[in-house]
């Protein structure tokens, strides 16, 4: 659900990335064009169209050179290179994400691109001085209150954290973890089994694939407790479960109604017996009254009577 909801946002990101990539070094234009793009009503259509906008942006490019700022306020070549690379990797990652959106494979497919994106961002945001004693962190990340580069990156970071991909990827973004690989192979077995019986009778499928499905379920719940899960695994498990229970209708039937009703009515009957028997057989608790001594002389009470009347 949320991916579906998020998709316009993703598209927007993609758009802004395109704009950014095509106008490296000219911040004004970049945000300008991004604004323009974001106004376009049919967002998905724009993705396809975006190359068309490129020439337009290019034409603005030349126009903007005339009104550039003096040297010392501009960012250095080194930083603009970094920004350029950042843009490229960003595009690559977002591209990858969009294609892996449904069914979710964002961790399996895009971990390497995310790794490189993270790399370059770390370069940008690091304290170390580049050549010419310039720190790109200040000029790129903190010069304006929009902080576009930071914003873009943090969006991607959010997606990465939300999908908990860390759990499925080895350190250093080398490959998928063994657990994940094992899960995928188990999943594949189950799916193959499903495919085999898909045409025929579903009851047969329920019987023959049960073992594979159960193994998969068990593996999943193990991984659930071990915290070795990412969105890919969850999603594929969801799909499989839905196949199993909705499409193939293999859930447990409710067939024990009579014994359950019998046992529960017996249980509900017990307190009635208990209260009845304790009412009938238990001795009622009585309290012994004690009469405190009071002084009430005739005269005083007469006084009260006078007072009252």
């Amino acid at each position, binding site marked *: *659900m*949320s*991916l579906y*909801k998020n998709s316009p946002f993703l598209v927007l990101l993609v758009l802004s990335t395109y704009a950014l990539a095509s106008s490296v070094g000219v911040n004004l234009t970049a945000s300008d064009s991004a604004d323009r793009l974001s106004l376009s009503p049919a967002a998905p259509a724009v993705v396809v169209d975006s190359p068309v906008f490129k020439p337009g942006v290019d034409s603005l490019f030349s126009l903007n050179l005339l009104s550039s700022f003096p040297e010392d306020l501009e960012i250095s070549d080194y930083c603009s290179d970094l920004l350029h690379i950042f843009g490229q990797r960003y595009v690559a990652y977002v591209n990858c994400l969009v294609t892996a959106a449904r069914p979710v494979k964002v961790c399996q497919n895009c971990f390497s691109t995310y790794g490189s994106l993270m790399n370059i961002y770390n370069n940008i945001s690091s304290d170390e001085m580049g050549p010419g004693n310039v720190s790109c962190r200040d000029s790129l990340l903190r010069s304006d209150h929009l902080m576009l580069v930071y914003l873009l990156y943090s969006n991607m970071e959010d997606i990465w*954290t*939300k999908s908990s991909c860390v759990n499925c990827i080895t350190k250093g973004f080398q490959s998928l973890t063994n657990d994940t690989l094992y899960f995928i192979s188990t999943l594949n077995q189950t799916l193959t089994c499903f495919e085999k019986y898909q045409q025929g009778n579903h009851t047969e499928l329920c019987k023959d694939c049960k073992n594979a499905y159960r193994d998969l*379920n068990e593996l999943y*719940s193990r991984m*659930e*407790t071990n*915290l070795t899960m990412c*969105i890919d695994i*969850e*999603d594929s498990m*969801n799909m499989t*479960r*839905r196949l199993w*229970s*909705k499409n193939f209708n293999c*859930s*447990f*039937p*409710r*067939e*024990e109604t009579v*014994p*359950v*009703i*019998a*046992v*529960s009515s017996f*249980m*509900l009957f017990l*307190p009635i017996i*208990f*209260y009845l028997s*304790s*009412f009938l057989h*238990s001795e*009622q*608790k*009585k*309290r*012994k*009254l*004690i*009469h*405190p*001594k*009071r*002084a*009430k*002389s*005739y005269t*005083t*009470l007469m006084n*009260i*009577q006078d007072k*009252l*009347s």
Partner: protein
Amino acid sequence: MANIAKKVSWSSRAEESGVAGERTPLFNGSEQPRLSRQLSGGGSVFQIGRLSTVDLEEEITSDEDSQRGRPKEIPHNEKLLSLKYESLDYDNIENQLFLEEERRMSYMGFRCLEISRWVVCGLIGFLTGLIACFIDIAVEELAGIKYQVVKQNIEKFTEVGGLSISLILWAVLNSSIVMLGAIIVAFFEPIAAGSGIPQIKCYLNGVKIPRVVRLKTLVVKVCGVICSVVGGLAVGKEGPMIHSGAVVAAGVSQGRSTSLKRDFKIFEYFRRDTEKRDFVSAGAAAGVSAAFGAPVGGVLFALEEGASFWNQMLTWRIFFASMISTFTLNFFLSIYHKNPGDLSNPGLINFGRFESDSVAYNLYEIPLFIMMGAIGGLLGALFNLLNYWLTIFRIRYVHRPCLQVMEAMLVAAVTATVSFTMIYFSNDCQPLGPEHTEEYPLQVHTQYTQHEGRLFVSPLLPLVELLLSFSVSLSQLFCADGEYNSMATAFFNTPERSVRSLFHNQPGTYNPLTLGLFTLTYFFLACWTYGLAVSAGVFIPSLLIGAAWGRLFGILLASITSSGSIWADPGKYALIGAAAQLGGIVRMTLSLTVIMVEATGNVTYGLPIMLVLMTAKIVGDYFVEGLYDIHIKLQSVPFLHLEAPATSHWLTAREVMGSPVTCLNRIEKVGTIVDILSNTSTNHNGFPVVVQPAKLCGLILRSQLIVLLKHKVFVELARSRLTQRKLQLKDFRDAYPRFPPIQSIHVSQDERECMMDLTEFMNATPYTVPQETSLPRVFKLFRALGLRHLVVVDDENRVVGLVTRKDLARYHLGKHGLEELQVAQT
């Protein structure tokens, strides 16, 4: 007025028949029945001068003979006062020893006392927090193990069939755990049953409830709470925290434990009722604060319940104890949740955060909230009424410990059965979806990513994960895989977690039918459970009932208004409903408002919660009293309310007081004293000391006399043994609070002839009133000064009577005007 005249007539006859000797005890039930009592006849209420339509003359003649026989027995009812409750000595005994000690004490000594008060409060807070933490962790761990067992069993049987066996297993498991809790309560410490709030209310009011603040009670209470919550009863662990805090306070401030026979020789100055009471109110506040994460609410609770004895410094100290307690709990829970140092999750129950836009409220919703308050008041009154009948039945018929244990077990089994059946037959399958946000890993709730079927597992809460996954697999019963049964989440979680999910789950999580059924069953289960012989509170069940119907209300509201879905967030209405229900049941006012506001952590909810609680109280009070007051009444406690009953100004001290009074001479024979003290038919605690002829010169307490007898402070002995150590205040403190009974003190025949000089030990300036003082005036003195005995004197300072707490508490305003309660044994 006619009645008065009649009363006059039989009173005077009583005067003739009853012989008032000089040493006759105050309450002399068995031998000299008062004719005035005959008016009560079969009923239990004796009406004073109002609306009495009984034909008096006939009554007297017919009843006279039977009355002279053995004492009358009546079934237990709410209009009784029990003799077993005594008063606490909140009034300082200013005798010569006390003055001497004060004179000896240096300036530094007083400073040290002040500092040690602070230290004691800190300790109270710390230990209360620790106990709360222990209960919390124990419940989570044990419930986890239990759920694991049932879960595996159900999973097994869902597949191969035979779910009725799982049902039996679940019921048996629950009832055996509850049995354990009920056994320790019923057989070892019955006072630990229930939430303990009524008992603490009584203690702060000045009633000495036997064994209420003992270490044994604390142990039983803590274990009992763990058992009943783990046993799956419809109870909470919050109420008992208040009792636990009070016991901790009473123990710590004394610097010793009489149960363990350890004396640390510290805080000896605090060994008297006045000081102890202050600390107990601090302990109760610390308990509230640990239970709800509401330090201010705790202070206000102590203020509301103990309001008559109060000063600013005490408030400040109590606040200190509350803060320490909530943050101790916090700190240790953060360690338990492997997040040490995180101090931002106070309280055993946490309502979660109400911060998003959807839970903002608007002016036009206020009438709706007030309406919900009225509903809460009605439902609360119904709850209290049902519980009242049930409690009367329990007191009359289910009084044997083994029956009580059986009853508790049955309730546990039925609770499990009902839950199971409802889950079994529920078709309300919802996609899985709850998850934690990583920013607040300890908070179960807040946001939902909408990945269908995603079950997030917190890295920090292995147990939450266990429980959640449990409810998932259970509910999966007949739902499609990857979906859960929303009935199961409501029933199968610990109540605290269910409350939170009702507050915060996104709209559409529960369908109206599920909620309706849940409210109905849980209402009756909770009502049935409260008053069992298990220690457990009623806060959480009330919140849960209220949250369920509040959410239902919100859903219905959203469905009948066209634009409803925008502002009618069900979570918000669940909160209001919870407040309304809780207010309707317990009828607390200021402190409950602040507790709720603090627990939600959102001050802007102050206004609606206050309005709701006000409405609930007004509506509920129209029908029946609050639950705690009902239970106080049913236990026949002589509880002094804020004010004397209205329309009682015409009663004077003369009618109210007990008379004649057992007085002692200033120099009294030991034999006489021993005889008076050992008279079993009376159990007087205060004796006016007189000089002949009957002029009042002081007041002495039973406990003091016993200490004097024990140390043999006789005039003759003092003469013979010149070196004898002079008795000090310390000797009295050492005996406190469990003074030995008179039977354990041996006085030889020779010693009986000795004399005892009481001058030094008696309180030389007891409070006195003239005979014509009106009841409300006497009442005010008692309530404001925390008196135990008030001597009534005539114009020549001669003792004519003695007013005690029971004499005042018997008057109450019933449906037919002023009524008088009767005094009963035990």
